[in-house]
């Protein structure tokens, strides 16, 4: 047991790799076997992260379960992992969602083995970002996660649809979307890469806790430019990389394409966890490494956040494609995360800032649950109707009442109905940022109105209105496997909505330390 506790993070991080290797050894034709092995083994990191959750000392600040091993000494980078309340929450979210997405993927029939291996590689990349306490290692995982996601969209994405790329040349949508996703994100991380290299070259370390001290005390730079200019440039390099991932308006255009074209499980992970990587980058790196710049530019960040909220909601409202509607809703909801972070950056150390940042982290977790749930439900209906066009649905509630109930429940959580999780976190963000950015917060709340509008539009178009008689006899109710996927998400949504303290306590300690 002590061995497990001492190496807990390493076990959680590398277990997906072991699973992937194991699956590689299984015969490719045995699809059922591969699915079940993947499903059962994907639970083990979740169990370990529960162990982590209950052994985590909530009263203590700072990183816990840390481990440091030599990795790349000449450039002073090491394998250094550790968790605080923020990353712990994200690890729990990731390990929880993976088994559910694997279960969702039971309907994949083409190259199951490769698919599952890619999924575990993806999990490895995401967990690595959350666990890293070394800037280089952070970047390693940050980039690595792109590769499996690219192939998941590129190979298992939706099979219909074409996009015109250049003067009449058309490519399948999923190729277009995956390429855009990859190049957009890689180009975004280029600035991050350069800034990381520069920081490493100047300070001579990549260790994140060490950098918090050294980088902030840098006075002299080996360039003929003032320290503040260089820091401001590096700050924007970080911000743009993370803003693309979140995504913040106007860097969001890759998202609707990628989310819409990805296979259901891919969309769940993309919205559920991958977007959180960007927000996590803001909290873990940007705020502590650039306190002055964050403070100075927080107003801009808040403005972009508000625009994300409003435009995301308006764009979602305008969609005819159910999956695209949900995709734009991510832009809308992640805007609140960024608003909370911006507010916290602007009013460092105040009570309001702490509340706003707490709200932002909780919103990350909540959006992970509700976005994954929504994409899953879109996938369920798509699998039966083979259309995502809202106009072709309508009045389905009598045919599939259980599904309808679940959809309404999840949509309400997404909308922020009191009693469900979304309300708690959005309220905290708004409460925290109101005294700091009053006008922006007020605008964001108007944005919430549109949130309500597009969510109700989605429900109305699918479930209510005149029944499209075409579907009578074709539509089957949600099955046991699917119910098993959505049930844990619903339980969590309700439990956070009713009694948020269990998770906020864990987050709060870490948030206080960020400043």
């Amino acid at each position: 047991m002590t061995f497990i506790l001492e190496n807990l993070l390493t076990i959680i991080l590398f277990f997906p790799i072991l699973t992937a290797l194991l699956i590689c050894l299984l015969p490719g034709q045995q699809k059922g076997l591969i699915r079940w092995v993947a499903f059962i083994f994907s639970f083990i990191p979740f169990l370990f992260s529960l162990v982590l959750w209950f052994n985590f000392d909530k009263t203590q600040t700072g990183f816990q379960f840390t481990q440091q091993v030599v990795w790349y000494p000449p450039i002073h980078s090491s394998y250094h992992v550790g968790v605080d309340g923020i990353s712990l929450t994200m690890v729990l979210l990731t390990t929880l969602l993976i088994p559910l997405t694997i279960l969702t993927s039971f309907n994949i029939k083409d190259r199951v083995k490769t698919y599952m291996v890619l999924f575990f590689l993806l999990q490895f990349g995401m967990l690595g970002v959350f666990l890293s306490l070394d800037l280089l290692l952070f970047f390693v995982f940050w980039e690595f996660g792109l590769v499996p996601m690219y192939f998941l969209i590129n190979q298992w994405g939706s099979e219909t649809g074409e996009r015109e790329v250049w003067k009449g040349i058309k490519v399948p949508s999923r190729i277009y979307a995956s390429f855009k996703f990859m190049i957009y994100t890689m180009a975004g991380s280029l600035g991050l890469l350069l800034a990381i290299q520069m920081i490493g070259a100047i300070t001579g370390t990549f260790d994140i806790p060490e950098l918090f001290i050294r980088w902030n005390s840098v006075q002299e730079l080996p360039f003929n430019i003032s320290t503040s200019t260089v820091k401001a440039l590096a700050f924007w390099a970080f911000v743009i990389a993370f803003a693309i991932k979140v995504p913040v308006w106007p860097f969001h255009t890759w998202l609707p394409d990628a989310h819409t074209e990805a296979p259901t499980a891919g969309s769940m992970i993309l919205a559920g966890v991958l977007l959180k990587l960007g927000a996590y980058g803001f909290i873990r790196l940007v705020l502590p490494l650039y306190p002055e710049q964050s403070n100075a530019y927080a107003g801009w960040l808040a403005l972009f956040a508000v625009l994300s909220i409003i435009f995301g909601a308006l764009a979602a409202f305008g969609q005819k494609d159910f999956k695209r509607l949900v995709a734009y809703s991510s832009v809308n909801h992640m805007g609140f995360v960024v608003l909370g972070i911006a507010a916290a950056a602007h009013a460092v150390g105040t009570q309001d800032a702490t509340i706003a940042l707490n709200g932002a982290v909780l919103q990350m977790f909540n959006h992970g649950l509700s976005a994954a749930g929504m994409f899953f439900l879109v996938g369920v209906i798509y699998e039966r109707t083979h259309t995502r066009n809202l106009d072709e649905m309508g009045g389905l509630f009598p045919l599939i009442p259980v599904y309808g109930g679940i959809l309404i429940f999840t949509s309400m959580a997404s909308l922020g109905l009191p009693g469900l999780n979304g309300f708690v976190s959005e309220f905290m963000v708004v409460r925290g940022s109101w005294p700091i950015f009053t006008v922006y917060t007020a605008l964001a709340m108007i944005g919430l109105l549109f949130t309500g509008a597009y969510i109700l539009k989605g429900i109305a178009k699918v479930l209510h209105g005149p029944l499209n008689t075409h579907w009578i006899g074709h539509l089957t109710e949600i099955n046991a496997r699917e119910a098993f996927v959505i049930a844990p998400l619903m339980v969590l949504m309700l439990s956070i909505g009713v009694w948020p303290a269990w998770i906020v306590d864990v987050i709060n300690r870490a948030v206080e330390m960020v400043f």
Partner: protein
Amino acid sequence: MQFPVLSLIIFTPIITALLLLLLPENKKTEVRVISLAAATVALLSSIWVYFSYDINQAGYQLIEKYSWLPAMGISYHVGIDGMSAPLILLTGIVMFTGVLISWGVDDRPREFFAFLFILATGVFGVFASLDLFMLFFFYEIAVFPMYLLIAIWGWKVTREYAAMKLTLYLFIGSVIALVGALAMYFTSGLGTFNMLELENAGFSTAFQKLWFPFVFMGFAVLGGIFPFHNWSPDGHVAAPTAVSMFHAGVLMKLGAFAALRVGIMLLPEGAKFWMPYVILLTLVNVVYGAYIASVQTDFKYVIGFSSVSHMGLVVMGFATLNNNGMLGAGVQMFSHGVMTALFFAVVGMIYDQTHTREIAKLGGMRKVMPLVTLAFIIGGLVSMGMPLFSGFIAEFPIFMGLWTSYPWVAIVAAISIVITASYIIRIIGRVFFGELPQEFSDHLHDVSILDKIAIGFMSFILILLGVYPQIMVPLVQTGVNNVLRLLGGA
């Protein structure tokens, strides 16, 4: 007296080559088996050399020295340091996999393998030489069989042109370098070609500034430095698969390595003076090479130009003249060698079956050759500097070195990463995924088990180095320390 393992490595290939030439022409299977056995010996002993190098002791090790022409101060003097040990291993790997992949060569395999092995002797010799004369001696041995290999077994359309172009370029380069080397020999007044002594010859700064460009650029031609790079894509494309692997994988390293060993290490003051200019040339290599690669329509030309881009990074790393940059360059030589050998192996496997390299005509290869697809993807990820693959381990320190010396160069060079990513992704999508063209669907088949072993082995090395850099980095670090010592602890 320790076992002369370096001599074993250097002379195994050439002795095998002579042996092969003595066999009757029709014994093709015997030829292949003997070649494979010799390549295995070379690989195993190069692995042994690599791991027997004592990092704590550093310096030159496994030294062997015999007088060869005492009157002129020439001796057969070999030894390895942290810079050359990985390259010896690289050559062993490329030789072994090259033989595996050339199993199907049916046109005069006896001569083919014999020339390939003479080439290997030259390459091993250059990496191990500690004597300036010997270095040139082996260098020419390496260049000469290349001409025959390309002109006889190459791609019928351009082989004479490419072979001629390559050989002339390289000979001119080496002659210019030789002039510089002779200048060193006569000016030093030591009457020796021993590089360990020449290192301490104390050439005047004016002398170093005058002769550095000759020596450095003469060798850097083989490293593919702009504007003398354009022999290389033509040569790569025209050469048969195993030769392309050798050519891009090892031979270009020969140029970069000799430029380091003779140029930077013997003329450090000259290096300090000229490097700001050299780095501009390499910047063109890196960015322009990547751009040219991205607009090619021939699969093999894409890889050819990508080598120009990546070798630019090697020389760029050397040109920073600081610890991180050189460390990265040392690792990049190994990483790029394995990666590009893997690339050319894959291109060869596809071309052998489809007889076309037009990207637009290919497609859906994953359906017939899944492992080849995986190997190409791994090579592609290395190429675009994806973390957890060896390319990242190599390129990251190079960029850190640039940040210390030339920050704006780092920013401009970084553009190449995105360009590389875009063309690699495009190729993966076009060639390996999508629909298999009708004309191929009936006669394509998966590659042989030998091919699979070769590409699997190379892919494994690329991942191993990416995940666990400790396996190579401390070794290269000792070599870099030695260079830095000569540069005056810069």
